[in-house]
């Protein structure tokens, strides 16, 4: 079943990259959200998929039920999601400020800094 | 007093959620609920609540019945090839006054057949309702006022 999700990751990445190359800064952000999701999914898939057996230990057991899902990628993704969330919020509001300050949402029109080089 | 009751209810809700029933859990739940209430301070203009359990249960029963029938009515309209409805936007005058009552009525109106609350007027005098089967506007208004509003008032007023 990993194969299917490899494909989905590929599609999400493709669309994410495509959006990240667009001129509208908000659409860039959408691309970034897509790629973040794709990468989280990729990490998840890379840790192998297990159906319906979360890595929880029953209150009367010392070990999880056999065939439990790999908890490591889950923990990694959690950290990555949170970090990505912080980065994304910042980027979103930076984009807002840039649009307000520079008067355009077009990333290619934002070149005050490199003028005169 | 009502806040205290609500707090106790929250504590029980806490125990329910935890699936643990002990004095420690109750205390924790109570404290958590206490702080939650402290933070949000709901029902600032609280009316004098009566404990009208019976009225409330009746309200609930009526409501569930209406919900089911209304759903079936909608489903029927959905699955039949033609659109049966005669929609209209209707202003329903209100007898209820407090925030809580208005909310309750508005939500119940939304969840019952053929009507959907769209707005409350700024002076709280009437609800704006979208009615799906409004061949006769007055019957829609009467239906809301007699079945829902009356029963709500039974619950909330002494």
């Amino acid at each position, binding site marked *: 079943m990993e194969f299917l999700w490899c494909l989905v990751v590929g599609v999400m990445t493709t669309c994410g990259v495509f959006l990240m190359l667009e001129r509208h800064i908000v659409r860039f952000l959408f691309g970034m959200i897509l790629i973040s999701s794709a990468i989280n999914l990729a990490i998840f898939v890379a840790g192998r998929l297990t159906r319906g057996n*979360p890595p*929880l230990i029953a*209150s009367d057991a010392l070990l999880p039920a056999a065939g439990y899902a790999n908890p490591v990628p889950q923990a990694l993704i*959690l950290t990555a999601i*949170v970090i990505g969330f*912080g980065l994304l*919020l910042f980027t979103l*509001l930076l984009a*807002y400020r840039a649009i307000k300050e520079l008067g355009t949402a077009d990333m290619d029109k934002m070149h005050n800094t490199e003028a005169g080089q | 007093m009502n806040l205290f009751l609500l707090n106790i209810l*929250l504590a029980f*809700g*806490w125990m329910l*959620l*935890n699936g643990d029933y002990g004095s420690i859990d109750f205390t*924790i*739940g109570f404290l*958590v*609920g206490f*702080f*939650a*209430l402290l*933070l*949000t*301070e*709901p*029902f600032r203009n609280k009316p004098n609540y009566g404990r009208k359990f019976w009225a409330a249960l009746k309200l609930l029963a009526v409501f569930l019945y209406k919900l089911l029938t209304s759903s079936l009515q909608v489903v029927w309209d959905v699955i039949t090839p033609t659109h049966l409805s005669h929609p209209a936007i209707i202003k329903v005058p209100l007898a209820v006054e407090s*925030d*809580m009552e*208005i*909310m309750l009525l*508005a*939500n119940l109106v939304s969840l019952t057949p053929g009507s959907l*609350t769209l*707005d*409350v007027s700024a002076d*709280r005098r009437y609800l704006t309702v979208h009615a799906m089967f409004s061949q006769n506007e007055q019957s829609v208004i009467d239906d809301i006022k007699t079945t829902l509003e009356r029963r709500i008032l039974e619950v909330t007023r002494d």
Partner: protein
Amino acid sequence: MSSIIFRTSAHIVTVLMLVFSVYLLLRGHNNPGGGFIGGLIVVIAFALLMLAESPDYVRERLVYSPLAFAGFGVVLALLAGVLPLFFGQPFLTGLWLGKIGSPLLFDVGVYFAVLGSVLTILLNVEEELS
């Protein structure tokens, strides 16, 4: 947004969410949940309240600046980390007193850090943009 219906239900829903968040935080060690999820639910609760009322109303309810909560959270987490060092154990080693342990303290730190931070962003966004 000044709808009576929304405001009234938002108050109720917020209370429920706050309770739910603490519940998720405390049981997170044994069941799905934990500081981060709990913290985010607090944020959603206050987001509702903010949408129903106003950012100022939320700030008033919170008493302290949300950033202070965030700082408090970081300090708690750092404290949970550094505590074992005084017992000659490595940074962030779990110290347990019955059911209460430094990892839980750490998780509470996460809870506060997250709710403080995201609330800060939320309130600032609402205030600065309007």
